[in-house]
């Protein structure tokens, strides 16, 4: 037998193993292990939100408080500006001033 024939023989012997590969039989405890794994996954998922929820709620409250404080401070400034403007208009009418002259009352 020459080298080429010998090589071909080895190849065929190896390829034949494809038809004789190990087949796993049914595993009767497999379902139990799958359920145990599912239980583990569920527990992992429920621990995570238990830690995150309080942290998230705290952050939400802080953000809302901050926004509310900024809003009311802003409103106060707006109210002051509106009162000033009203006063200027009243004075302008009383003194019969033109619009361009009303800036005399503007305090810088």
């Amino acid at each position, binding site marked *: 037998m020459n080298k080429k024939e*010998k*090589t071909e023989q*080895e*190849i065929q*012997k*190896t*390829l034949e*193993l*494809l*038809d004789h*590969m*190990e*087949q*796993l*039989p*049914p*595993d009767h405890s*497999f*379902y139990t*292990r*799958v*359920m145990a*794994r*599912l*239980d583990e*996954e*569920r527990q992992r998922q429920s621990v995570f939100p238990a830690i995150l929820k309080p942290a998230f709620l705290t952050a939400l409250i802080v953000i809302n408080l901050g926004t509310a404080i900024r809003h009311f401070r802003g409103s106060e400034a707006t109210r002051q500006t509106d009162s000033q403007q009203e006063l200027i208009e009243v004075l302008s009418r009383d003194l019969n001033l033109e619009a361009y002259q009303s800036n005399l009352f503007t305090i810088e």
Partner: protein
Amino acid sequence: MGLPDRTSDFKYIVETHQEKVRNICFRFVNNHEDTDDLAQEVFVQVYESLGHFRKESELTTWIYRIAVNESLDFLRRKKRKKRFAYLISLVGIDENKQGTVPAAAENPQRELENNERKEILIRAIGKLPEAQQTAITLSKIEGFRNKEIASVMGISLSAVEALIHRAKKNLHKLLYHYFRE
């Protein structure tokens, strides 16, 4: 609090399909420990996605498709780890270098043990393109006909036959290079 009532349907699904799913995983990963882990993961996914199953294909086909995809993902991750380990070894950090060539390569004339031959075959299959690897691997699992393989892979029957034919040809080439040296 226990799992929902679909547990009894799920039990039926596991018991009906576990043998084939475990064999699919085993054929791809070739060791019992990883097979068990992978197969469990497949059924966890099945359980979690059962509500989204749109019945566009058979339940069986869908389950086997998950098994194939999970197995291929596992092999990809393993290859990445190997590549990384190889790079580490090049730099000389890891001194525990494992020989990757079976002893037979040192003396190709000697009669090979079945285990070594099997190892060579598994490595050669691992070098095939994924589609060919999938087609030929599934075709050698008991009970898997080409029509079923076509459904799992989402291709035509003739495409499966072509893939198997090409896979065998490529395996022959790979083994020829190996045994000729």
